[in-house]
């Protein structure tokens, strides 16, 4: 009896996880844009409004563009750091590692205020360049972890074998290291893309009259008008995220998300 009750509780909790997203998806397909009882008539009206709106589409491309650039930069930087730190344990290497992970222990609102100051120091506040830079700083730890995890699976004997057979370091990197850590790189890239594309808590402090992102625009739209077109946009974003995760799962698996931290 207890067993079944526990099972029922767990099933309900699991069902609650995707519930808000499911409700938004159903709402987006109704005439009123709200999932109510009795269910309003089916309509694709809100999708039509979204896809024909120049403002929304522009923001969609802006946010995707920022996210791709940020993911590229962060993945490259994280790869440099991870490869050196993994290979050479030097004085201060664990301090360097801790500094990379540092942004993770700051409350987001505090990060937002800190970046607001930094961007005005650099003279790029309220611009896409500033937002991109802040996103790079935030995503770096997300890229570092999966790359380091995949490097740990790399057998050092393979590199030695390559080198002793006369390959140059660059050749070994291209033919041995990179193919083996590819899952880590892909996970890092996708992780950074999603974090940057969805980021709102820090970005909200950094936008300017000339530069805003899709999540921030959705946020202000919910506050100001609560137009049901938001349900359509949200559903669209969810479908994209779902597609990305499915691709990730098929190609490299999801294990790199929940890898134990090895203590050494």
């Amino acid at each position, binding site marked *: 009896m207890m067993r079944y009750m526990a099972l029922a509780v767990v099933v309900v909790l699991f069902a609650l996880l995707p519930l*808000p997203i499911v409700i938004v998806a159903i709402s987006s397909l109704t005439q009123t844009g709200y999932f109510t009882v009795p269910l309003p008539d089916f309509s694709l009206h809100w999708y039509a409004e979204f896809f024909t709106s120049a403002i929304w589409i522009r923001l969609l491309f802006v946010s995707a563009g920022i996210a791709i650039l940020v993911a590229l930069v962060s993945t490259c930087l994280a790869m440099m750091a991870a490869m*050196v730190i993994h290979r050479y344990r030097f004085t201060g290497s664990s301090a360097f590692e801790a500094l990379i992970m540092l942004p993770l222990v700051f*409350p987001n609102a505090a990060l*937002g*205020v800190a970046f607001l100051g930094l961007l005005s*120091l650099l003279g790029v506040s309220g611009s896409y360049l500033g937002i991109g830079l802040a996103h790079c*700083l935030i995503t770096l730890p997300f890229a570092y972890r999966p790359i380091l995890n995949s490097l740990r699976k790399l057998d050092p004997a393979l590199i030695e074998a390559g080198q002793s057979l006369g390959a140059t370091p660059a050749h070994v990197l291209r033919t041995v290291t990179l193919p083996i850590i590819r899952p880590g790189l892909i996970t890092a890239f996708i992780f950074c893309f999603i974090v940057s594309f969805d980021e709102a808590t820090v970005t909200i402090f950094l936008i300017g009259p000339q530069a805003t992102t899709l999540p921030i625009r959705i946020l202000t739209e919910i506050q100001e008008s609560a137009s049901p077109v938001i349900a359509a946009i949200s559903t669209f974003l969810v479908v994209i995220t779902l597609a990305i995760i499915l691709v990730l799962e098929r190609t490299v698996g999801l294990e790199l998300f929940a890898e134990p931290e090895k203590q050494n």
Partner: protein
Amino acid sequence: MTQNRNLLWLVPPGFMIALFLIGVSYLVVESLRQGSGFGLENFSAFFQRADYVRVLYRTIWISCVVTVCCAILGYPLAFAISRYRGNRNFLMMLVIMPWLVSIVVRTYGWVVILGPRGSLNSILLHLGLIERPLRMIFNQTGVVIGLVHVFIPFFIISVLTVLLYRDATLEEASQTLGAGPVRTFWNVTAPLSLPGVLTGMILVYLLSSGAIVTPLLLGGVRDGMLSTQIYQDVLQVFDYPKAASMAMILLLVSFVVIIPFQILERHVATRVSGRGHG
């Protein structure tokens, strides 16, 4: 020689770290600025305002409630995933998927469900259980529900990381020695997963205290948190030293709560693994 040359690869990531440190130092310095000199005036001004102190208390309170709720609701889920014998990937997707969907979208979901014109109210009205819509958001309840949902995946993943990679032979040993499943859970599994629980709780507390989207959308005007207060102040008058001092207070508040937790976590991890961190 080659090692020294290879260390040059650390320069680009090091540059990013330097930028980050400059940003944080600037925050610290500016929070101490008063007029042309430096002092603690921004901080004393904060604590002299009763409304700000209430916001501070509320921030700590809400973050604690959210952390406890995530632990109570999240642990059974993590445990269920770790024990599930079928296709675990499906359950993992259920956890990871909402985690990767924008906070804005997930919070909007709760507006649609719990709002005055929302789904739950419409269902209850339709069934005749209530006569007028219940007020479920734009108050602290709404903020807590939203934050728990938004941050629970972080807790589940933390616990799962420990549960999935634990040594299953210890549980077998316990059962072989005659302990029932309940005793095995309390004496073996629960203590082994404690480091994951503590890590998860630290994460959730940190994320809740710094959250801004969910309290902004689900909280009422009178139920602001420190982060939303900072945001509103920055929007109204751009007073960077004031904003910086409030951000510093937020930072200190989270560290004051987290550091004892982290010490506890180290301690527990050392005891559980039977060896220290090397």
